[in-house]
């Protein structure tokens, strides 16, 4: 037991838990809107764009965090603008973004010295290596993103629910869309440190689809999703420490485990209900 409490006294564990849970909250918040817009893979696309942005930063010797944000947000905005005019499906545009980001990344890496350790940490995450400054940046970004979402909360819900009705009610749908894309880009890039580019959509999508299966109202769905996400991160980090595995993988496996548990519980709950109703009829 003492060993368990000692675990929390390690500075790097404290930093990992604080930044991890902050990121879990932010990903659930942004992710619920993405899932409901049927753009679950948009986060994945942005993260691949970020890969291109990181490669640009590495190639030009600029801090990759900033090039990733600028490159992925501006590309996503441009692609969204193209979608408005061409009326192409969102999933097709996701495929374009995804390939474009990877294409740029791979090309620039092949022009430099190949893969570096840093690039691998962006690809697969390195939450146990976050510094005190990283924690400050992460928590700061989470506060900014959640405040902006909070400020426009009802408007974002309305646009997600029905774009046309939102327009009739006087909302500036296109501007809200652009703001949302920038928030997605910031969320994905801040979260990359935790689970890495390749696994980012797990934190954005899985807790939300598990929560949606419980058929609750919007605020409750969001709350449950945040709990699932935060628990996955918290216990994922603890388990990875004890089993000496990669935390990002453990976090993803745990969230998938919770998702499967929700499916099974729902199945049994419905069958028990049907069984008790049938007994009553008899």
């Amino acid at each position: 037991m003492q060993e368990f409490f000692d675990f929390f006294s390690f500075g790097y564990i404290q930093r990992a838990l604080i930044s991890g849970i902050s990121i879990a909250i932010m990903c659930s918040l942004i992710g619920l809107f993405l899932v409901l817009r049927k753009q679950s893979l948009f986060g994945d696309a942005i993260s691949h764009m970020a890969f291109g942005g990181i490669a640009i930063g590495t190639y030009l010797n600029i801090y990759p965090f900033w090039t990733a944000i600028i490159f992925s947000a501006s590309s996503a905005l441009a692609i969204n603008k193209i979608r408005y005019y061409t009326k192409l499906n969102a999933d097709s545009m996701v495929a374009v973004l995804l390939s474009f980001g990877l294409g740029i990344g791979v090309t620039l890496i092949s022009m430099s010295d190949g893969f570096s350790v840093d690039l691998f940490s962006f690809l697969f995450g390195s939450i146990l290596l976050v510094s005190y400054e990283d924690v400050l940046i992460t928590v700061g970004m989470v506060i900014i993103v959640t405040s902006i979402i909070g400020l426009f909360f009802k408007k974002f819900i309305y646009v997600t629910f029905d774009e046309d009705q939102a327009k009739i009610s006087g909302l500036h749908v296109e501007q809200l869309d652009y703001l949302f894309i920038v928030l997605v880009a910031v969320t994905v890039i801040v979260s990359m440190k935790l689970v890495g580019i390749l696994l980012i959509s797990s934190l954005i999508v899985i807790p939300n689809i598990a929560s949606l299966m419980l058929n609750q109202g919007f605020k409750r769905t969001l709350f449950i999703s945040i709990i699932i996400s935060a628990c996955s991160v918290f216990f994922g980090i603890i388990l990875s420490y004890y089993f000496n595995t990669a935390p990002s993988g453990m976090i993803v496996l745990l969230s998938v485990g919770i998702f499967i548990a929700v499916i099974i519980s729902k199945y049994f709950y419905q069958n028990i209900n049907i069984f008790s109703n049938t007994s009553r009829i008899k």
Partner: protein
Amino acid sequence: MQIVKVSSVSFEYGSEKILDDISFNVDEGDFLGIIGPNGAGKTTLFFCMLGLIDGYNGEIKIFGEDIRRNKKILKQIGYIPQRKSIDTRFPLTIKELVSLSITNKSYVDNVDKVLRYVDLYDNRNKIIGQLSGGQQQRVLIAKALVNNPKMLMLDEPTNGLDQTSQDNFYLFLKQLNDEEKITIIWTSHDLDAVNRLSNKISCINKKMFYHGTKDDFFSNDNNLKKYSESQMQIHMHSHY
């Protein structure tokens, strides 16, 4: 008092003419039924009137304002889209859904009031997907009424409802028009319902071939013949 003036509105999508020189007026307190076959342009006409489509020729004035210049005027309209366009799996309680439409903080207290009015107050914490088709339609009405609109626009509101739900819904609309004095414009395929509810009728099939009182429309066999022919034309187009 005239509150809607549609003047020579035409709209093309690509090379196809969807609306061709449509003109009509609506007075305060009217209950206007817009009839026409599928593909006649009824929903497109609604989208033009609601400011969702701007690229039309002609002019639409609502409450005296050109809606392309002043979209704020749309806040005085309650719009009820076709029910099939609503995502019933969206995680919103009825109360959350109705609250979404509020355009001014002073209407926040209206949420409970309109939910009682449509007899859904006791179900306010249910998810929209847990309701029957008739109840979902009443939620959409509540949502449209929450800002105290002067006019309601309904696009084929009874599509997919059973006969009892349809009849209840029609009674409810009549009550809104008679007692709350709300002007109503609605599109429908149901000629019988339009005859029972509306005082005016517009009949369109890309072009407008009738606009006037219900009594004139049904007393003239020529109008009914034209309406039947337009239905037939669309039917033929869909086959050939």
